[in-house]
């Protein structure tokens, strides 16, 4: 019946309306969409091939042909920033999906079963959390090799404990609810209870955390690439672009400033959308963030 489909649509509309009621959130959404479009259509949007070395145009100032100038190998900075959005988004979204999926399953198991399973998982989580995420990602990236895949797994590993803790904490409170007991009493299996009854009620904080962590993942990737232990050149990673530009800071500050601003914009956008989602999903927090 058409009447049955109406409430969810209204709910979604209300959700979007509340979410977009703050200017900064709208800015965040637009910025993310813009970066997404730039990443997808990079070959069309970028004026040059990001790896093309125009040897007659080395270290050019910003001009009409190269809006953000060129680097020491004559590569167009704007084109490299546009292509760099692909790595940033891939790492940001990819790592968070990997870490959140694994963290959710492990957190569900720890929280639901409790006892020694909970103790072992949580103590290991505490152990991993004692190592600063950047340091941990640094070591794991060295272990797996410094390609996009290695860096993604490394950052996921560094972010994993946060999700385990979050989901475990949620499960501990949700599993005490009466509907979980009711599901038990009508004979629903453990897996069914965990994934069908408990997990959906842990999703709100998970979605907020995922959005926030995308920004952090991009920051960690950029830091690793800056240190030369992340994604290696000639790939157009923003962090390594900042490092390359650092050598020519006196002559061409734009080489460092440009990609740095791109990192800041994306991280800012994800954080603002995360704040907005937090506001929308938890009305008690509205206006506090």
């Amino acid at each position: 019946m058409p009447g049955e489909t109406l409430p969810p649509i209204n709910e979604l509309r209300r959700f979007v309306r509340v979410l977009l009621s703050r200017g900064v959130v709208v800015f965040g959404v637009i910025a993310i969409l813009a970066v997404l479009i730039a990443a997808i259509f990079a070959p069309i949007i970028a004026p040059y091939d990001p790896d093309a070395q125009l040897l007659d145009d080395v270290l050019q100032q910003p001009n009409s042909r190269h809006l953000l100038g060129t680097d020491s190998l004559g590569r167009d900075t704007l084109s490299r920033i546009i292509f760099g959005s692909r790595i940033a988004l891939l790492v940001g979204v990819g790592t968070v999906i990997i870490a959140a999926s694994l963290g959710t399953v492990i957190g569900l198991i720890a929280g639901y079963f409790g006892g020694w399973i909970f103790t072992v998982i949580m103590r290991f989580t505490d152990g991993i959390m004692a190592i600063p995420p950047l340091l941990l990602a640094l070591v794991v990236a060295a272990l797996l090799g410094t390609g996009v895949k290695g860096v993604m797994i490394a950052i996921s590993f560094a972010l994993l404990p946060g999700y385990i803790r979050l989901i475990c904490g949620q499960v501990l409170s949700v599993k005490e609810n009466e509907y979980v007991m009711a599901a038990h009493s009508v004979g629903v299996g453990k897996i069914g209870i965990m994934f069908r009854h408990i997990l959906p009620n842990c999703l709100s904080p998970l979605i907020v955390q995922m959005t926030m962590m995308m920004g952090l993942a991009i920051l960690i990737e950029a830091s690793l690439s800056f240190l030369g232990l992340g994604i290696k050149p000639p790939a157009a990673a923003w962090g390594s672009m900042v490092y390359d530009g650092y050598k020519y800071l006196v002559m061409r500050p734009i080489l460092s400033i440009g990609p740095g601003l791109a990192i800041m914009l994306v991280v800012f956008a994800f954080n603002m959308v995360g704040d907005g989602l937090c506001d929308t999903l938890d009305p008690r927090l509205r206006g506090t963030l």
Partner: protein
Amino acid sequence: MHALLVILIVSLIVFLLMRLLPGDPILMYVASGDLQSFSVEQIKHLKHQLGMDKPLLVQYFDWLWNAVQGNLGKSLLHRYDVLEEIGNRLPITLYLGLLAFAIGCIIGPLLGVISAVRRGKWLDNLVTVIANLGITAPPFWLGIILIYVFSLYLRLLPVYGYTSPLVDLWKNLQQSIMPIFVLATFPIASAARQTRSSVIEVMRQDYIRTAWAKGLSERVIIIRHVLKNALMPVVTLQGMLLRNIIGGSVIIETVFVIPGMGKLVVDGMISQDYTVVQGVILVVAVTVVVSNLIVDVLYGWLDPRIQYE
């Protein structure tokens, strides 16, 4: 007890990660010396000497036992004593890190309270924008921008380097301002956001309305009733921030060429000097666990209910 268990687990994680890393430590050891003078038998002998032919678990307990006794091994490349080198560099990292942390602890909550009290006004908007930018600015980039503006353009501060405050305090201050500012940016920004959020939350409580109704002044309400309750989540945040500051030193010490622990670990990673990396991460993790313990104690002091649970 819990902290000790966590340290044990960290040591196991660090040890396993290091053993899984590519590159044979023995070959690194040999390569750093005179390569010609080592035969296969000698390498075997060296492996036996260093205990690397033993089962992994035995190696772990050997390493742990040595670590407990204050022996973190020798650098594979430079042959210096790792603990001694950490001892030389830790004070530098702690000096910059703790100053940044202290600044973050004071300025962050202060900005947060001002922002919450003046909610919706221009001051609030300004603090919110600054806090959000502070959270999102990549530290290495911020460092580079500061170097460009204050060192290269205005020529007010030295580009990089580190001098001990005991040797030349003025030079130390000049060299440390930018690294400390960059390290403190994230703590200030996140503490300001957290404080603002929790102060607004607390100000909605009934007891605050009662305090207003009693005719108390704004100052008394904020200091006596709001702050103590609102600072609880901020204290929890501080434990995490200290961890991030130690992590951040990796970046800052590389940008500003400061001979601290962060630089040591990055150099160790690049040159695959794993005994150094292993030692530094263990010391960092122990520092983080101990600081978390302090935060827990502080938490119990701020909220006596926690002690009775």
